[in-house]
């Protein structure tokens, strides 16, 4: 299995064997249920659908409920698809727990960042803005956004004011500090995007391999 669904609990710090203080994010991950196994023959691609967090039956619409009925599971609120690894043969109802990370050193964590609303360029892109004093008229403005007749248009991806935050952020190569299977808890070094209570996807790192 490639990863697991979890919830950000908050941050704290713990001491490692050398007595150093390590900042960690506490992620409550799983236990997740396998809901569906998508196959090339039926769906055109290979994946496994995981479900997390119980919810009431009336929160589901009928097609959703049907999927759970078919798998013989109680309704769950969060559902995500994960890629399969070689040798995986998931069956609906299989339990995925945090102990899958016991032999893993690094993970990638995806989550929705905290929304900051519509922000100007100084906050959103770190631009310096214009002069505040000496009669400055462009205090927090963007300044020039391009040239004149050549190219005669604004370049694509020109950094401008707009919505900041509330986007899906993936942080790669976060070190696993501790796995606590009895609490379904994963401790990851450093910060993870989003607020406490937010849903996170924890996957094995694509760039850094397993523990030797």
């Amino acid at each position, binding site marked *: 299995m490639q990863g697991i669904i979890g*919830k950000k*609990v*908050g941050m*704290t*710090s*713990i*001491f490692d064997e*050398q*007595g150093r*203080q390590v900042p960690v994010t*506490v992620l*409550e991950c799983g236990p997740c249920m396998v809901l569906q196994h998508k196959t090339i023959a039926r769906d055109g691609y290979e994946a496994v659908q995981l479900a997390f967090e119980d919810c009431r039956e009336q929160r589901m619409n009928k097609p959703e409920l049907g999927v759970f009925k078919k798998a013989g599971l109680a309704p769950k609120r969060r559902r995500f698809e994960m890629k399969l690894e070689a040798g995986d043969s998931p069956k609906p109802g299989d339990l995925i727990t945090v102990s899958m990370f016991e032999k893993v050193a690094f993970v990638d964590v995806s989550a929705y960042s905290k929304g900051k609303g519509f922000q100007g360029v100084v906050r959103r892109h770190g631009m310096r803005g214009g002069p505040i004093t000496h009669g400055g008229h462009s205090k927090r403005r963007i300044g020039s956004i391009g040239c004149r007749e050549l190219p005669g248009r604004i370049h694509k991806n020109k950094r401008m004011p707009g919505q900041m935050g509330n986007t899906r952020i993936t942080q790669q190569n976060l070190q696993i500090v501790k796995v*606590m299977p009895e*609490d379904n*808890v994963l*401790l990851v070094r450093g910060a993870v995007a989003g607020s*406490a*209570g937010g849903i996170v996807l924890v996957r094995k790192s694509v760039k850094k391999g397993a523990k030797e």
Partner: protein
Amino acid sequence: MATKLLEKINKANLRKDELPRIKIGDNVKVSVRIKEGGKERIQVFSGVVIARKGGGATETITVRRVSFGEGMERVFPLHSPSIAKIVVESSSQVRRAKLYFLRERSGKVARLKMADA
């Protein structure tokens, strides 16, 4: 639920032995375990506690000392396993929680009034 988990993790990080009661303005000796090339030795840092920050497993004290005319401050996480012990040598009578004003003083004015025993 969420805060209970955090509390549990923090609790596991608290030190097992008791530290003496440390107050702001105390003169303390902090014994720190230092690893050097596989060997472990203990270094003592003595000075006056000028600040106390944080709570639970992340609580720290800031210890200030003046050695060879140069002010020096070190922040110690109270629950760090590398802190072997802390001894309170004497206490002072202070009126504030943070003694940052000591940084601007040197010599006689940098002394603190001793607490009544």
